[in-house]
C-alpha cells in the first residue's frame, strides 16, 4: 500500500515540470492574450513603453463591426463546411475502395496519403501556380491553360482571384478548399480504413447470408459502426479549418477584397505588420473560443470513456 502511494506521488513529480511548462506557455499566455485584448495596446510606441490602459470590450466591438472580420467569419464558415464535407466524402469513398483489397491497393493508399507528409506552405505554393488564372481567355495559365489545350475553354475561370460570390460564399475559396482537401483527405481515408478493419467479419458475412446488398451493408451496417470515427474526423478537420493559416498565406493571402481572408491571416497582419496587438489579441481570443467550443466537449467525453 505504501509503495503504491509512494509510486503515485512520484508519478506526479515526474509530470510536474511538464505541467508547469504547459501552465505557463499555454494557460498563463492565454490569460495574457485575453488581458491584452481588453487593452488599448495598439501601437509600437506603447509596446516600447509598456504602458497601456484597459478599455473593456472596445476591441471586440471594433472587430465585430469590422467588415473585413465579418468577411473572415463567413469565409471560415464556408471553408469549414466544404472542406469537411469534401474531405470526409473523398476520404470515406477512398477507404471503401481500398478496403476491397484489390491488387495494388497498398500503393494507392500510400499515394493518397503522401500529401500529409508535406508542409501546408509547400501545398499552397504548388497549388497557387496551378490555379493562377493568367490572362484568360487569351493567355491562360495553370489549369486554365490545360482547359484550353483540352478544348474546354468554357471552364476557364479566375479561380482564387475571382470576386464572384453566391450569397456570402466567396467562390475564390474553392481552389483553396480543393488544395486543403488534397492535403487532408488521405488522412481521413486512413482513419476510416482503420475503422473498417476493426469491423468484425462475422457481422458482414451474416448480413451477406441474409441477402443484404453492398449498398445496404455500407449504409446500414458499416456507417453506424463508423460513427465514432466520423465524429473524430469532423473534430480533426474542424479545428484545422478554424485555425487555417499556412495554406492560405502561401497560396493566396487575403486576396482581392479579402475574398480568401481568414481570421488567422487578419490576426497575423494586425499583430505583426501593423503593431495593433490588442486588436490582434482579440481575434486570437475569438479563434480560441471557436476551437474550444468543439474541443472541450470532445476532450471531456473521450477522457470519460477512457480513450483519447
Amino acid at each position: 500500500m505504501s509503495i503504491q502511494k509512494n509510486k503515485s506521488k512520484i508519478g506526479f513529480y515526474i509530470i510536474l515540470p511538464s505541467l508547469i511548462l504547459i501552465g505557463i506557455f499555454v494557460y498563463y499566455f492565454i490569460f495574457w492574450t485575453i488581458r491584452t485584448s481588453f487593452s488599448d495596446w495598439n501601437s509600437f510606441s506603447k509596446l516600447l513603453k509598456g504602458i497601456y490602459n484597459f478599455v473593456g470590450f472596445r476591441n471586440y466591438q471594433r472587430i465585430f463591426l469590422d467588415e473585413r472580420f465579418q468577411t473572415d467569419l463567413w469565409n471560415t464558415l464556408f471553408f469549414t463546411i466544404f472542406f469537411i464535407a469534401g474531405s470526409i466524402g473523398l476520404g470515406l469513398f477512398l477507404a471503401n475502395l481500398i478496403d476491397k483489397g484489390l491488387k495494388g491497393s497498398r500503393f494507392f493508399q500510400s499515394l493518397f496519403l503522401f500529401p500529409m507528409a508535406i508542409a501546408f506552405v509547400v501545398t499552397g505554393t504548388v497549388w497557387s501556380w496551378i490555379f493562377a488564372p493568367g490572362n484568360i481567355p487569351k493567355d491562360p495559365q495553370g489549369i486554365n491553360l490545360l482547359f484550353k489545350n483540352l478544348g474546354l475553354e468554357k471552364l476557364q475561370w479566375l479561380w482564387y482571384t475571382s470576386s464572384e460570390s453566391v450569397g456570402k460564399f466567396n467562390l475564390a475559396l474553392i481552389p483553396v478548399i480543393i488544395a486543403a482537401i488534397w492535403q487532408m483527405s488521405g488522412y481521413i481515408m486512413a482513419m476510416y480504413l482503420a475503422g473498417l478493419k476493426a469491423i468484425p467479419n462475422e457481422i458482414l458475412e451474416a448480413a451477406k447470408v441474409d441477402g443484404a446488398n453492398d449498398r445496404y451493408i455500407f449504409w446500414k451496417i458499416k456507417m453506424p459502426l463508423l460513427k465514432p470515427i466520423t465524429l473524430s474526423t469532423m473534430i480533426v478537420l474542424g479545428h484545422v479549418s478554424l485555425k487555417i493559416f499556412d495554406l492560405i498565406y502561401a497560396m493566396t493571402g487575403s486576396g482581392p477584397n479579402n475574398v480568401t481572408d481568414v481570421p488567422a491571416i487578419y490576426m497575423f497582419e494586425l499583430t505583426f505588420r501593423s503593431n495593433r496587438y490588442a486588436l490582434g489579441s482579440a481575434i486570437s481570443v475569438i479563434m480560441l473560443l471557436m476551437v474550444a467550443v468543439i474541443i472541450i466537449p470532445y476532450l471531456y467525453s473521450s477522457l470519460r470513456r477512457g480513450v483519447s
Partner: protein
Amino acid sequence: MIKSKIIIYYIILVIVSLFFITPFYVTLITSFKPLSEISIANMWNFPKHFSLEGFIGAYKKLAPNMKNSFYLTIPATIISAILGSINGFALSKLRFKYSNLVFALILFGMFIPYQSVLFPLIQFFQKIGLYGTIPALIIIHVIYGIPITTLMFKNYYEEIPDELIEAASIDGANLYNVYTKILLPISIPGFVVVAIWQFTNIWNEFLFAVTVTNNPAKQPITVALVNLAGSQVVEWNIQMAGALIAALPTLIVYIALGKYFIRGLLAGSVKG
C-alpha cells in the same frame, strides 16, 4: 468479385490518383526546366532539355535555411520524444489522484490556436534574449509538443501489462530501473512513431517560424520558401525546385517509414 466491377474500381482509382499526382507532376517537370523554357504556354509539357538550373538556384538560396531546419528539427524531435516518454510512463504506470485531470489540462494545449499565445511568447523570448534564434524555436516545439508526445506514449505504454512493472518492483528494481531496463527497450517502435510525427510536424511548421525568427539567415526552410515567391520576378523553376527540396526530407521519411507514419497519424488522431 465480378470482373467488370474490378475494372471500374481501377478506373476510379486511376482518376483519383491523377488528382493526387498532378501537383507533384507540375512541380517535378517545372523544376527540371531551364529558365528559358519557363513560359506559361508550356507549363504542362515535359521539359525539352533537362536542366538542373532550378535546383542549383534553389539550393543556393535555401541551403542555409535547410540547415536551420535540421538544427531545429533534430534536437526538438529528440528532446520532445524523451519528455513524452517519461510523461507517458508517469501517466500510464504511476497514476495518481487527478492524473486524468492533469492529462486533460496538458492535452488541451495541443488544440489551441497558437495565435492565442503568440504575442506573449514573443515578448518572453525578447526578454530572455533568445528572440529570433533557432534555440527559441526548439524550446517552443519541445513545449508545445508535450501534449501530443505524452498522449502517444501514454497510449503506447497502456498496452504494456502492469504485471510486468509490478513483477519488477517486487524483485526490488526501483522506478528508474523499471523505466530504463524494462520500458525503454520495448519502446523503440513507440519512439520511431513519435519521432517521425514530431520530425514531420516541426519541419513543416510555419506560424512559429515566421513570427519568432525575423532574420532571413535564421529562418527555417518553410519561411524561406514562402519568401522565395515574394521576390519581384517569380522564377518558377527555382520556386518549384525549392518546394521539392523543402518537402524532400519528410517525403523520404514517409517513403522509408510509411507504416510508422500512418501509425502516428492514427495515434495522434488530431493534427495540432
